[in-house]
């Protein structure tokens, strides 16, 4: 009889000790659920802005021409205007190349003397039309969507997800 009541007492007590933990767990769970949605990263849709690169008259010659474009990036509550380099290939019907190396995402530079693009990070090299020459890059430089509007070459700047 005595042991019996002791056993129920103890189990009752251990059950009751769970209650405060339960309340704390409940608070954590409800705020934690909201926290997950609250902190979830927001992916920006790729910009469909057409950015002016240059007038067609400037784009001549066999060499890739480095140009700068200004693009607006929306990140959360702020928009930032960033300058990006692009390379125009007049020899290839004004194709516009992204300077982002498809290996790890560094920005390639044009080496005039050796007639090639060189990535400063891991020594990938590309020919004057962006084809991969050597190094760890898995493919050539990416072409950007481009069009001609009112005598101006325009481009949509985007960074490939597949870097």
């Amino acid at each position, binding site marked *: 009889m005595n042991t019996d009541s002791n056993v129920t007492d103890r189990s009752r007590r251990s059950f009751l000790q769970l209650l405060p933990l339960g*309340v704390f767990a409940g608070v954590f769970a409800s*705020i934690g659920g*909201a926290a997950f949605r609250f902190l*979830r990263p927001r992916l920006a849709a790729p910009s469909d802005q057409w950015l002016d690169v240059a007038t067609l008259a400037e784009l001549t010659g066999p060499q890739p021409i480095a140009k700068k474009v200004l693009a607006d990036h929306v990140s959360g*509550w702020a*928009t930032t205007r960033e300058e990006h380099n692009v390379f125009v290939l007049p020899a290839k019907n004004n194709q516009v190349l992204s300077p982002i190396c498809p290996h790890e995402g560094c920005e390639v530079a044009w080496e005039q003397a050796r007639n090639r693009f060189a990535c400063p990070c891991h020594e990938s090299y590309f020919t004057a039309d962006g084809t991969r020459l050597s190094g760890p890059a898995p493919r050539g430089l990416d072409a950007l969507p481009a069009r001609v509007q009112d005598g101006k070459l325009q481009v949509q700047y985007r960074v490939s997800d597949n870097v």
Partner: protein
Amino acid sequence: MSSHRSNQIHIWFGTTGGIVAVLLLVQFLTGVLLAFYYVPSVDHAHTTVSYVEKVVSSGSWLRSLHHYGSQWLALFAFLHVTRLFWDEAYRYRKAHWIAAVVLLVLVMAAAGTGYSLPWDARAFFSTRVAEGLMNGLPFVGRYARLWLLGGSDISTITLSRFFALHVLLTPFLILAIVAWRVLRVRCWSNLNRNAIAGGLVFVALAIWCLKFPAPLGPPVETATAEYLPRPGAQFLWLYQTLKHVPGAVGSIVGVVVPGLGVAILASLPWLRARRRLIGGVVIAIFAVWVVTMTVAANLSDRRDQRTREQLARQAQQESNWRREPFTAVSLSGPQTSNTGEPPVLYVKFCADCHGQHGEGARRGNVTFPPLLDVPIKPRRYRRAVEKPARLRPATADAVLFRQAVGAADARGCRMDRALETVALSF
């Protein structure tokens, strides 16, 4: 029967500790989350809070939890002190008692500093009031004000100070007090009842916050002169009291008297005699004061017709604002504009001398330097030209007019080097 009932009431009254613990947990969790988006700068504070309210999932609920939680916390922290007094904790459980009194002060301090952070019109006014209260303090007023503001005026430095006090200093002190209190306790009584009460209060708060978002006034620069700021519920007593006392007496009534009251309560364990009477009087005076003034504040807002209408208008404006989509702000000024048109204010004030497109010009021996692609400072001029809508029209005009006149004043030779450069691009 009646004694049984009063005993029941007393037992549930004993759960204020649990409620305070749960509400503190809520404040910590939601506060940490809000800090993921908030930026403590007068440029961006309001924008980031709007972003949390309008764009981020669950942002409005979490901010509301933090806002109303702070008001409920002040109430329950006060009830906790009262209940400990009732149980003569100052005699038998000194650590307990002092921790509760200090916690009440810290909770009010956290609420006071937190109120400035959204940098909306009411935050600005509450900062003004804090400034005034400090300034009116006897002997140290001047320095208390300067130290609080971090300079001679309310500025972005002030906001940074309030931010640091709110998210680093007070939470740390609160944690220290709670830890001290938890470690000193040998035996937990009534743990389950505390847990149940805390849980119920949390559920009530969570539902309340689903229904009522935390208020956010207009940004400081767009608030009109008619705007009526109202403090949070835990400060209504102070707000109403300040209506009734003249100037510097406000600091005595609003800061010194409550400070003395708290000091008396905290020193109760060391008083020799009449502790029950002294403490009881202090607590009773505070309770009556706070309740009367809070009721009076509500009544006076309702009674006066113009006040009532203006407050209704503000509520309407706020709900309209909530329906507008969020617009991101530009962090860097545009180097080229897509339209190619120079801003209207540039044409009005600057184009005559610096050229239609900011390319610079020369007239006789006077050189007007180009304004394109020059490092831009200060931000005020640039904003005046590029985003006049964000300044009041008169301000934008005045800023540029002063600049234009300042340049011409340089005796027709060169722009004074000491003059700030206004640079534009379009």
